């Protein structure tokens, strides 16, 4: 249970960072922390205490295996996370070229 709570705390750390940080890159990093906590949660969901890697052993079929599906899901989600982070970083670099700063308080053309 403690692992789940730690995972949730990691999510909240990321959320805190997204809300309070003023630097664009730090916001992106906080978003990545949230992402990692979600992946960790998936890995925990598939874990079974005392389980082994899910390769069927014909000699001893009664073994307990960990659930392989969440691992597959996490791999997919990591690739997606890579794409979102790359996209975010590309936009941040462009923003830096336009404004010459990473401070979010100075980037506020759009209001109302």
């Amino acid at each position, binding site marked *: 249970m403690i692992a789940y709570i730690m995972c949730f705390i990691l999510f909240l750390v990321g959320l805190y960072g997204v809300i309070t940080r003023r630097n664009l890159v730090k916001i992106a990093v906080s*978003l990545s922390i*949230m992402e990692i906590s979600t992946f960790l949660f998936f890995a925990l*969901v598939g874990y079974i205490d005392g389980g082994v890697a899910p390769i069927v052993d014909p000699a001893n079929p009664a073994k307990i295996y960990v659930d392989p*599906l969440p691992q597959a899901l996490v791999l997919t989600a990591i690739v997606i996370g890579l794409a979102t982070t790359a996209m975010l970083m590309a*936009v941040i670099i*462009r923003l830096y070229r336009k404004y010459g700063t990473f401070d979010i308080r100075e980037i506020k053309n759009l209001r109302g």
Partner: protein
Amino acid sequence: MNPLIPLFVVIPLAGAFLIMIIGRFIEEFNKYFTSLVLLFLTCISFYFLFITGENIFVYKVGGWEPINSVPIGIYMVMDGFTVIVVCIINLIGFLSAIYSISYIKRYTAGNYFYALFCLMIGGMNGVVLSGDLFNIFVFLEISVISSYALVAFGVESNELEASFKYQILGGLASFLILFGIGFIYWETKTLNIADIKQAFSSGYNKTTYLFIQILILSGFGLKAAIIPFHAWLPDAHSSAPSPISAMLSGIFIKAVGIYVIIRLFFNMFAVSEGMAVLITTLGTISMVIGVFLAIGQWDIKRLLAYHSISQMGYVVMSVGIGMILLSRGAKSEIVSLAIAGGLFHLINHAAFKGLLFLNAGAIEYTTGTRNLKEMGGLAKSMPVTSATSFIASMSISGVPPFNGFFSKLIIIIAAIMAKFYLLAALAVLVSIITLASFLKFQRYAFFNKSANPKNQNIREVPFPMVFSMVILSIICILLSLLVIPEIRHTILSPAIDVLTDHLKYSNSILVQ
């Protein structure tokens, strides 16, 4: 197994790939190829509209049959509700692609634009057709990432800022959704929507169940820009190139937001009164606040974007009323009337909001400004744009005989029959304020005397743009035919049946 179903995803994805490779060598390939792809998809989506009816088609990707009646493969599902949304996605996509042929000359890098456009269409089709939760997430990310790029396509400071905001909030929404999917998998050990329904109906942990519902609602609510989650929408939709704004506002928020909320809360979770009241409240709040935020805007595209929030509020409210009645076990005529109103308004909104954004794009194309105060007198120089935008404005503000009037009428009648008098009154009030706001748009853009000397020698936009706008305005008028009970019955009833009969969806998928 209908072999045509996966084409909705495969063709746009392959199209994006081919555009990037062949478009490099052959100029103008991208424009016509994208239009051709979308035309083909529109044709097969309308073919499905005719053959689907009460059927539910299932396509098992890779041919993985269920083992001991437990689905193990990826399912793509086409039913009465899906087919409506697929039709509007591909139709509006096709018209936007035609419109882009001229409009995209403002930008460089046409290949990237069209490749992202195809990716977005493929992602949305995938979300709508997917029968399991994780694929909904994957396709959602495909369409959302391409929409991030398209919002920032102008790479000016405003576009980049809007895209940044959109990405932060969109990323947050994605993680909420992913968390929700993780919890669902934890509870049920399956990802197939039909199978999850079966697992939930044989008992669940109440606290976790509520937590999952909140996670899913807030995640997809962020994508659909329902009011407490709306902050990104006006920036993102007004900064994108106009055909993309038409796509984002017209279909994107429906396909990845409203559609998934309706599908999951009717067909996956058991309909509960508490959740239904929450959804109705959120819908009503976005309906009322959206229009008040819209009324003070002078930037046309921001004004239209705020109206999208308000009009989506109508859809959510109406469907929510249906949910409340369904959970109370009320008469099925009122339930189906409320849901029919919501779906009808969803279809109508795709037509008229798409058209309005294309009009705004045409105005921006000729005058080079989006500020209403700098326009004026365009009615004479741009007659087609003026006439089509008049039709769209009257549709959105609910003036008979245009389509918006009938869907709002059905929503209001359903609210009165369900004895929600306050909601009916608010719907009428919001409609009146919408009318006022669009009269302002018409007056300042088209009928005022122009103070700006630059507006003297303006001509009508090129043919492809005119073509899209005229077709959409004809659709706006034709859609009001849906109010005739026979036509409504053939098109909307299969969707309503799938939504209200809470076991039909999961049972008929699991036996196939």
